[in-house]
């Protein structure tokens, strides 16, 4: 039987396992370190996820504003189109000018 198996069976019979103090210290230290890392990892991942979600929301909002902006620009252009401007001019009582005279500032005293 190997030394390791002797240690296992001996410990099982006695109800406790005897570890060298150095090994005990290493084991405890490892558990502490892993637990610490796990806690930090959990904190980091949740924060990253939240940030990613925030970015996604901003992106979605950006796309929405982009759509609305394009739509508004189109509506403004339609209202200011040549045909619409002509219609509104007629409604306001304007008429096409057909007798246009240019006046130049003269040298008259």
């Amino acid at each position: 039987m190997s030394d390791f198996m002797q240690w296992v069976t001996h410990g099982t019979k006695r109800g406790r396992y005897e570890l060298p103090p150095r090994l005990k210290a290493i084991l405890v230290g490892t558990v502490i370190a892993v637990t610490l890392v796990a806690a930090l990892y959990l904190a980091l991942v949740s924060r990253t996820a939240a940030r990613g979600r925030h970015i996604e929301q901003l992106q979605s909002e950006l796309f929405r504003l982009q759509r609305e902006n394009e739509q508004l620009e189109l509506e403004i252009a339609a209202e200011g189109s040549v045909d619409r401007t002509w219609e509104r001019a007629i409604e306001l009582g304007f008429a096409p000018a057909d007798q246009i005279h240019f006046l130049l500032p003269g040298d008259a005293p």
Partner: protein
Amino acid sequence: MAEGPRRRLRLVIALLVGLVILIVVQLGQLQIIDHAFYQEWADEQQYQSIVMAEAPRGVIRDRNGHLLAGNAVVYSIEAAPPYVLDAGAVAAELGAILHLPAAQIQRSLEERDENDQLLWWVRIAYPVTKEVGEQIADLRLPGITVWPHWTRAYPEGRLASHTLGFCTVELTGFYGVEGFQDDLLRPEPARWEGPVDSDSEQIPWAVAPIVLPEPGTDLVLTLDRTIQALAEEELARSVYEFQAEGGTIIVMDPHTFEILALASLPNYDPGRYVEFYGAGQLPFEDPAVSMQYEPGSVFKIVTVAAALDMGLVTPESTYYDDEFEVGGQEILNASRQHYGWQSVTDILVKSLNVGAAHLSTEMGAGEFYEYVYRFGFGRITEVGLAGEVAGQVWTPSDFEHWHDSNLGTNAFGQGLAVTPLQMAAAVATVANDGTRLRPHIVLQRVEPDGTVLNHQPVIEAEVISSHTARQLQEMLVQVVEEGVPNAQVPGYRVAGKTGTAQIPIPGGYDQEGTIASFGGFGPVPDPRFVILVKLDRPGTSDWAADTAAASFSRLAERLFVVMGVPPETATIAEAVR
């Protein structure tokens, strides 16, 4: 146990408990305090209704910033039937909003494939308006997705339709600027860049940057919306008044060769291009660049310019107008008469075909066609519009097509084919003191990052000397003042030349109908615009002097006002005195 080890043991236990508490607190933070945040996120991922990953296509504006082609949003209502909980209820709700039969929608949702499985995807309705789309999205129906899509819109309707072209449902551009500049206008799609495995699947755990979608490049055209509207209005009036089958009007800036207006009839509404399919000949090709014609006497400008520039003649040089033959073909004046001694200026004023043929034969084919090419004929102008053709100019090296008589007939614009834009550019060359620039329709490009790139003028050729050009300008003023009264504009000196060309048909020329055109510019000196008017088969008169010349005069008069060019004879207001 000794005190020392016991203390150490308690310390370790405390540390471990602390760490466990830390983890429990983190879990509490995630599952209790931030519960609502993550629940909302999970809900959105599970029932995501509005998704858009497409950027808009670049817009097109005129030189003053007026929108000519923009982007609108329409919605597509789509379903993933396996995720629809109650097809009947969903169909009823959607049917009420979309005004579609609920039974039809339910059939779509319950449709099965050949394996008796529900389809993975069906489209319920497209396109629907923004209001209806958002109303359906607010219902948050499982399995129902509202997809926004960009669609192209043209707020000015038919204005500049040939220049703009149109976009299909897939936002692919055809004809005009939409077609020629499709690569620039098209947006960049969203894409993911990162490592993949052998099956092209994303490798997990790798940080993969997503490249966000980028809008297309915006274009600012050289068109002036106001001048375009005036040109289209005049063209419509002329086509109606002179009972023409169609026509084209081009307005250019002679100093920059920017296209201020490009109007052709028949035209169409680019936002409703589908309606024109099946209605006979499609009106999508731009006659200004895609259709060639024999220009007729307006081409005499080129012949006379060449002869003057070579030093062969002066405006006062004379020739004897009598029977004249070139390559075995008799050259006749339009009136079928002969006029005896005439000057070179008279060739233009009286539009004498014999005189033009005299000049071209004296020059010789080599020199004549060299000038023809330098004026830009026989090749595309590279203006930036889809479907441009080069025209047709045969030279002695074209053995199969050339005939000696071509040297005579080409001199007065028959036997060769040009596009209206080529003819306008040639007239603009004379107005620009002999320098030909590249005509262009795009003034600026505005990149997605805001960078503005201006068009850089391209000097194509110093075709004739400025002295020759100035001489020719004055000769063309004489043409209007002495030969074409309909082209005159009261108070202004304008220059130009008529062209009344026969239309070639198989076996000869059509005896009924002509192409009537007028190419001119004003004011002289220092012209502000070039106008080419071309009317197809005017019914009231075959002659350009009666039709196209009048169109030129009316449009020029309005352009002088719009551009703020006072007449030479503007008077001081008497009331001031």
